[in-house]
């Protein structure tokens, strides 16, 4: 290891340091830009491939949505959203709990309803069955 460090030191000129520093900054910026889990601002509810509605997360509200099996309840509570009640049999969507980050989604296949959280910029192109 010490040998390696010595080699690095003797091999690097001033311009190389600049390139190296620029590279480190680039990588740091890429991590920060592309891996930041941005908080969501809106929730989009879909029934099948049809958009049922898009709601701001900045409120406290229960929305009753009619799905293929029956009415489900989507709860919004100050920046997060969840399925709080669903007529489906396995209740996966309800057990998924609160979602708060952009790009997160909860899907209820039997009832054909889905939630997708949207930030300022949408990280995914689409969400399909």
């Amino acid at each position, binding site marked *: 290891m010490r040998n*390696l460090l010595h*080699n*690095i030191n003797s*091999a*690097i*000129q*001033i*311009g*190389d340091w*600049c*390139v*190296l520093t620029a*590279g*480190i900054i*680039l*990588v740091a910026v*890429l*991590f920060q830009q*592309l*891996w930041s889990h941005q908080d969501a601002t809106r929730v989009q509810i879909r029934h099948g491939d049809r958009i049922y509605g898009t709601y701001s997360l900045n409120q406290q509200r229960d929305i009753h949505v009619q799905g293929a099996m029956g009415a489900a309840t989507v709860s919004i509570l100050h920046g997060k959203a969840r399925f709080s009640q669903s007529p489906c049999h396995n209740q996966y969507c309800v057990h998924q709990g609160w979602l708060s980050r952009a790009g997160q989604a909860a899907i209820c296949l039997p009832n054909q309803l889905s939630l997708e959280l949207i930030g300022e910029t949408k*990280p*995914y*192109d689409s969400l399909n069955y």
Partner: protein
Amino acid sequence: MLIKTTIEDHRIAKLAAVAIALHMLEAVIPSPLPGVKPGIANIVTLYVLMKYGFSSAAWVSMLRVFASSLLLGQFLSPTFILSIAGAILSLGVLRLCMYLPKKHFGTVSLSILAAFAHIAGQLIIVRLWLIPHASVAYLVPVFAMAALFFGLINGVIANKLLYNETSTIDTASKNNQH
């Protein structure tokens, strides 16, 4: 029929053979993340570039990509396309790097810049053709970090080979393998 060959041709063939051997060696080493590889064959490209100039380096690099893919059975497969996209873009960047002042920018600079170009070429192909989906963006920081790290290491090794002058290419190939 005999094709006339020059000394330069022989040299390129020898150096390309070393690069191919390193490429083969690397293909055997398992990688923690698919696509993240040290790219040790590029040490040879850098060595040739600094010692014999750009056109020799381009030949060695291209011969290595074609021959290795034939040997590994990947010719014209997505792996080959990725490989060649990376090689072409990094050669392009190296060509531009020839205009950098030699006094301040050494092998390490070239290596890091070429590594970034390499990964950029591959990611462009991945995004446009293999996984046409925005989620590819999540991979970018990881690949960029790997490019920086291995670019630095390869550059230092190439530099050592060039300026610790015991190096004929024969000892060069031995040095690379540990």
